[in-house]
């Protein structure tokens, strides 16, 4: 039986002063599963990611990550829980330009003891974990000490993926990470990301409005199918 990683029940969320944006009766993501979630701009994709990361709290319902109901945790505990179990990849330019590639990749381990511990267990040290991840993602070791802002867009996205994967978080959330890449680079990046997620045993929640990528994932969903609020809006 497959284990559930994320489970949403009766989730409702509205920004103050606005009508309800999300109304999701039920949603599950299984461990090791890769899910493509599509939706047009403004449909609430980023808000949903914020809720899954515990940054926002829903108006009603529950969000369970690894069996833990995030709505029952304090803001600080949700922050802790997020960094311990979730890695994020953003659209583009999402590295700190003033840090080196290695320092960018190692950032989550500086804020999460659990991920630092896992990185050491798997690779011997945090430095070795960063180097190994970058190697797997096709980046040469000589780039490790370079400043992040001198890399190409494609290289930056791979560094961002390594950063999301270091310390083996159970969930990797990618928010339109390929929109700045051309078609060839996009697919190559995705294959590397899939391989790394598989190797780390991480689930991948991939949010995009680019329908052409959907077939590469275990499952694909439109946010509108999940979200009753969007259907009411229609």
């Amino acid at each position, binding site marked *: 039986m497959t284990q559930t990683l994320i489970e949403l029940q009766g989730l409702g969320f509205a920004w103050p002063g606005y009508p309800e944006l999300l109304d999701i009766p039920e949603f599950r993501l299984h461990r090791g599963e890769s899910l493509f979630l599509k939706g047009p701009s403004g449909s609430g994709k980023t808000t949903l990611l914020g809720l899954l990361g515990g*940054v926002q709290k829903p108006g009603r319902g529950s969000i369970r990550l690894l069996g833990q109901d995030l709505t029952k945790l304090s803001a600080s505990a949700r922050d802790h829980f997020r*960094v311990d179990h979730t890695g*994020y990849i*953003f659209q583009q330019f*999402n590295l700190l330009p003033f*840090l080196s590639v290695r320092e960018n990749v190692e950032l*989550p381990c*500086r*804020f999460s003891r659990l991920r630092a511990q896992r990185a050491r267990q798997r690779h011997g040290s945090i430095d070795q974990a960063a180097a190994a991840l970058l190697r797997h993602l096709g980046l040469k070791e000589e780039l490790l000490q370079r400043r992040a802002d001198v890399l190409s867009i494609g290289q930056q996205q791979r560094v961002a993926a390594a950063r999301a994967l270091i310390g083996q978080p159970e969930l990797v959330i990618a928010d339109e990470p390929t929109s700045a890449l051309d078609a060839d680079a996009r697919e190559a990046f995705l294959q590397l990301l899939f391989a790394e997620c598989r190797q780390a045993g991480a689930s991948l929640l991939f949010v995009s409005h680019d329908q052409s990528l959907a077939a590469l994932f275990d499952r694909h969903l439109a946010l509108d199918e999940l979200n009753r609020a969007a259907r009411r809006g229609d």
Partner: protein
Amino acid sequence: MHLLRLALASLANRRFTALLTIFAIALSVCLLLAVERVRTEARASFAATISGTDLIVGARSGSVNLLLYSVFRIGNATNNIRWDSYEAVSQDKRVKWAIPISLGDSHRGYRVMGTSAAYFEHYRYGRRQPLQLAEGKPFADLFDVVLGAEVAETLHYKLGDKLVLAHGVSTVSLVQHDDKPFTVAGILARTGTPVDRTLHISLAGMEALHIDWQNGVPARGAGKASAEQARAMDLQPKAITAFLLGLNSRIATFAVQRQINEYRGEPLLAILPGVALQELWSLMGTAEQALLVVSLFVVLTGLIGMLTAILAGLNERRREMAILRSVGARPWHIGSLLVLEAFTLAVTGVLLGVGLLYLGIGLSQGYLQANYGLNLPFALPSPYEWTLLGAILAAALLMGVVPAWRAYRQSLADGLTIRL
């Protein structure tokens, strides 16, 4: 530790703004410390204008007035002292030495002081430093003059030059003693005290200048005495302006002071130079405090500049904060990062400011010592200066809380949403 590394890297990324901020803080800190050090040293230097003198005696007036005209050559005596009074006091067994002072004439704005050889022997300034002649010798001839260093330098006098003294102490004098010119016999080494701005002649020389004066004006015609005629006349002074006393034992100071103040021959006033100097300094204390307050405000301006620079950059850095949040930084991490930045800027500014101060001292030490008698030592900061520096850092920390709080609130509102 990692937050500090992040703060440093982020600052290095904005190095131009950061350097300007640091420089502004450094300059203000340097100014504050310089003002404080000059203030302290000026006070010490002021107190060192005269040293080793136990009592100053003059006609009865105020202690500050007596100090001003006898030591600083400012203002005038209300009355003279009779020569026999001077002799009576100076012959007291408790008196080790006495220096008579006779004032009233000037030369191109500089005061002329009639005195005795005891002046060159016993007068002390600073840390009991004696007067030294840079050139020549003390006055030997009746019409010899020994110049203070500033007088010689400003008026370009050298040994052997002739000069004419003027009656009165105003810059422009209507009555010149041009019938009795003086010859420069010696030039004193610089002291940084009013001695540098004084022309020293003998008491007999002073008497000779006025030997033919009647009713406060020079005699005309047959009554007029030439320089050569004056030499043959009795030049024992009848009165002097003041005198300085050194005692055999300091314990006797108050007893001698009381005795002089109760002197029956004429109303005299004996003052302790240290006490009068303190009294005079306290009169100038307001200006001194005002200077310190102004420099404190300059530091505050520097810190507000830092606050402005951090706050102005905050909006552009929302992306940085969101990225940090996405990799696990909690809002307090973001706040701490901003406080650390402010503190780093302030610490670097303070260190650079202290460095600039020592550089400034190194460059100006000789000049200040030579021209103003200010000895600025290469000493470590005093406890008070440490307190000032600590207060600056505390203020910077406090100011760092403002952008930290804003960033904290922003990071809560933005969450993981990366804004441009």
